[in-house]
């Protein structure tokens, strides 16, 4: 089993989730209101009231095969809008 951590702008969340659904992930969890810094952007709390949106942290537990499909689907969004995607190992409790 794999664990995928996505960190993307809240404003691209709908696109990302659509992509996940298309890749037929078994489920996902979203934590909004994340802030942070990447190579390109700084996201701070006041992004929230200006409507720019903070970041969202998306966690997906799934099999390796699905990961491939996810990669294809979300690749373009990530490279255009920024954001990170990392995979680790995980086993069910």
């Amino acid at each position, binding site marked *: 089993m794999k664990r995928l951590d996505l960190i993307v702008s809240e404003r691209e969340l709908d696109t990302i989730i659509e992509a996940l659904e298309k890749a037929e992930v078994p489920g996902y969890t979203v934590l909004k209101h994340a802030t942070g810094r990447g190579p390109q952007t700084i996201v701070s709390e006041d992004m929230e009231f*200006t409507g*720019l949106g903070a970041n969202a942290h998306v966690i997906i537990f799934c099999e390796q095969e699905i990961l491939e499909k996810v990669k294809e689907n979300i690749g373009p969004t990530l490279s255009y809008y920024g954001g990170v995607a990392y995979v680790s190992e995980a086993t069910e409790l």
Partner: protein
Amino acid sequence: METSLLLQNVLTPPVLFFFLGIIAVVVRSDLEIPAPLPKLFSLYLLLAIGVRGGFELQIGIKEETLLPTVCAAIIMSLVIPLICFAVLRLKLDVFNAAAIAAAYGSISAVTFITAESFLKSQGIPFDGWMVAPLALMESPAIIVGLALVKLAAPKNRPNKRVMKWRKILHESMLNGSVYLLLGSLIIGFLTASHNPDGLEKIRPFTESYLFYGVECFFLLDMGIVAAQRLPGLRKAGSFLIVFAVCMPVFNAVLGVFIAKLLLLEAGNALLFVILCASASYLAVPTAMRMTVPEAKASYYISTTLGLTFPFNIVIGIPLYMQLVNKFISPSLG
């Protein structure tokens, strides 16, 4: 005289709270207004401005100056971004120039409110329907900004993302804050014309001291945000710093001349000038973030929020008032 006007502007509770917020950051107090409270204030202010504007519009709809003023405002929100774009292209790429230009073509509702408070404290009359041009200046500015990207951007945009007119219109009209402002304006208008009772019940919510209090609270937060943004601006370089102060003044001067042509009286004239001089930190950045990710958010947010907004609130309003007094009602100047 200017210092007296300046003082009178500064010594009002909203501006004092704005300073309190700025100072909090400067002295490193840990005062903060956690999310989503600023959003609550912002939603409330937009709703309240909209409803009141709709009501005043319904009353003033037959006034002679209304239509010309609205048209002039829309034209300004189309022209100003073009001027700004030309200036900004001296130093910036197309994406950043277009995004910042759109912000300066659009408006800041809170600057507008503060100017209204200032006029009230000075006893200078103005028309409530000036909210109508306010509500109508956001979308055109966004459209111009996005059109500039569409037309002037390098043809090989990364990921071959083509900007569609449909998407441009969607972003410019259905952006959350534009939508709430316009929607509330329509609701205010409909209620005023068909249901005077309902209007009497909603008006105190949108016009009483609650509005004034929330304004104070929001400006406290804006002070904090503005002061936090300032260092980001320093990074962006001196060109943008100069731009963020001089452009509003230039736009204000432009606004004064148009206001004179429109034969507006002092109060309405100041509000018109404020619409020209202020820059958007709500609707435009949101639209740009989605459609022009190549532009740096820190640029268009820091200029508008970190410098232009405080400048207008503190110095701009009395300064523009003096311009208006000089050119529009010279007897009072």
